[in-house]
């Protein structure tokens, strides 16, 4: 079921959590809400779920206005960051909860509930653990129970709040690909909140990047990384070098180098900020003359810091394959060439 969000506003006292949010979530897509803490991403998710109510704006679930519906009527599957499992119930009872609280004609017979629980346990690969209590499970297992519990009610959309936030790195990676699998199996429209860009870029079909209660960019992960729409997206998604520059006609002058201004929207003459990712800088002729300041091995890559000759002491960071190690000790002169960059009017 697609979700449409129109002009959503939410304030907490003097703090603006959501500022005129408009968002269209396609049916069956996996969308990430990515942003730093305080950007409004969790508030947006909770408003979609009906756990919070917006001050203004509408939320449509497949064309039907859900803004006035309470959380019970929205039929959303919500997975909490800290699982929020019912501690005093077994795993099976946790999963069955949403089915057992149904009354009247919607109520399923006990046998059907039990069968559904078994089905979900195998979906989340926890067969045979139905009799355990949450306290007897690992963090990753608990999160999978929470997901199974949310899926039990056959929700119209699945919402996950920092689903892997409380887990360690290895478990996170495993669960990430597993969540992608579940998403493909169920075909549910899924929205998840994360502050981890790697998670968002790897897992989602599209990413909405939030800052200060506004959506800075809504794009596919590749687009968000390759063509960030704002300086904020540039610096929040991935690493980036920021250099002072000047617009002159059809070119941008940065640290003594003239770069073509095609595709740069900054109009007229004036100061601007140039953004270049470390991996978009190559060593070679025709670029800036620079002096290596330091080189640092970081896992499979080599990080090189270099000071630009004509750049008032501005430094850039380069990302090189590890084979380059030792070839450019501090003090060596190198040529640094930007192969892809973005420019925005100076802030």
């Amino acid at each position: 079921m697609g979700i449409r969000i129109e002009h959503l506003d939410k304030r907490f006292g003097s703090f603006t959590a959501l500022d005129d949010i408009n968002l269209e979530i396609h049916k069956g897509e996996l969308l990430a809400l990515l942003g730093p803490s305080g950007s409004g991403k969790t508030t947006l998710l909770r408003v979609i779920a009906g756990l919070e109510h917006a001050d203004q704006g509408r939320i449509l679930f497949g064309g039907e206005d859900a803004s006035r519906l309470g959380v019970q009527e929205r039929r959303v599957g919500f997975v909490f960051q800290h699982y929020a499992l019912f501690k005093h119930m077994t795993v099976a009872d946790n999963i069955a909860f949403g089915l057992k609280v149904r009354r009247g004609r919607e109520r399923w017979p006990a046998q059907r509930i039990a069968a559904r629980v078994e089905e979900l346990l195998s979906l989340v690969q926890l067969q045979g653990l139905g009799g355990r209590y949450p306290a007897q499970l690992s963090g990753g297992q608990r999160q999978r129970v929470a997901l199974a519990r949310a899926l039990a009610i056959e929700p119209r959309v699945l919402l996950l709040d920092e689903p892997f936030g409380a887990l360690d790195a290895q478990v996170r990676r495993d669960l990430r690909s597993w969540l992608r699998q579940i998403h493909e199996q169920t075909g549910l429209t899924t929205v998840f909140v994360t502050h981890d860009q790697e998670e968002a870029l790897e897992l989602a079909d599209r990413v909405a990047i939030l800052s200060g209660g506004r959506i800075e960019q809504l794009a596919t992960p590749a687009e968000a990384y390759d063509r960030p729409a704002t300086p904020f997206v540039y610096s929040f998604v991935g690493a980036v070098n920021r250099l002072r520059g000047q617009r002159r006609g059809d070119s941008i002058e940065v640290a003594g180098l003239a770069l073509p201004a095609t595709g740069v929207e900054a109009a007229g003459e004036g100061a601007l900020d140039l953004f270049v990712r470390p991996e978009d800088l190559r060593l070679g002729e025709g670029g800036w003359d620079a002096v290596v300041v330091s080189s640092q091995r970081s896992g499979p890559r080599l990080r090189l810091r270099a000071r630009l000759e004509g750049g008032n002491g501005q430094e850039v960071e380069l990302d090189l394959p590890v084979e380059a190690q030792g070839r450019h000790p501090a003090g060596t002169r190198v040529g640094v060439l930007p192969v892809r960059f973005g420019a925005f009017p100076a802030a």
Partner: protein
Amino acid sequence: MALETGANVQGVLALEADEVVVERTRAEPRPRLASPTSEPRWVQWLLLLAALGFLLSFLLLPLVLVFSEALRHGVDAFLAAVREPDALAAIRLTLLVTAIVLPLNLVFGVAAAWAVSKHEFPGKRVLVSLIDLPFAVSPVVAGLLFILIFGAHGWAWPLIDEGLTLGLPVLGQVHLQLPKVVFALPGIVLATVFVTFPFIARELMPLMEQQGSDEELAALSLGASGWQTFWRVTLPNIRWGLLYGVLLCGARAMGEFGAVSVVSGHIRGRTNTLPLHVEILYNEYAYSAAFAAASLLALSALVTLVLKTWLEWRHGESLAANHRH
């Protein structure tokens, strides 16, 4: 570099063998250094003795004395004192009052704790201070309060004495008359409710706050009604804390003296609770009977203590953080 896995594995093996050998040769015990936060041994003993001495002389000794005095004239005298009609009436009244007060405070306490810990509303701080009021106010003052309201010169006296006749549109003439409060059961119950109110609310508030409302929100998002959420999620999560509060509340309700003394009127066989009965007997120099009645109260306190300790030991993790051991 990436293909040199063989070398890595060898390195790991060599390291492991080395480590094992080193561990084994270092088996001799090293001299134990005192932790920087622990005191010299003699200071530890001195403090321990002081604490023990205090406990013995001020807590255990009186308790033993109560029981020995109660049984000084033999078991028969003890039984006679307990079976005496006034004593039986006092026991019955105490149990009755406790039986009325506990469910009342259970409901009030859960409702207050729930309102305060799971919701944000203006005036929350004021409400929390009000809940604590009975702890701050002397029980005697609390008792006087009820005399001022319901006594023969109190505000509500006309309602009790003559009642109020109202002409209501649909119901016609309605006669509203309150039962006698002061020097009767309702007064004793009111005074006890007032004094014991904070026990359950205070026990539950930190517990519920600490648990947050994620589980409730999860239940709601799964389609549970507010009522189902309360019975199936909120209540089971606080059950041990609730029992703990009920226990403390019950112990206090049975032992309450000050507030009840003011409102009860000390009518023997009718408005005398067990603590008041003890006082009357004592004032009449019936020491043995007084101690016999007192020993019943002490016994109930001991039972409470045992149950409380068991709860802390067995379900400490489900109680508010300040009771964890």
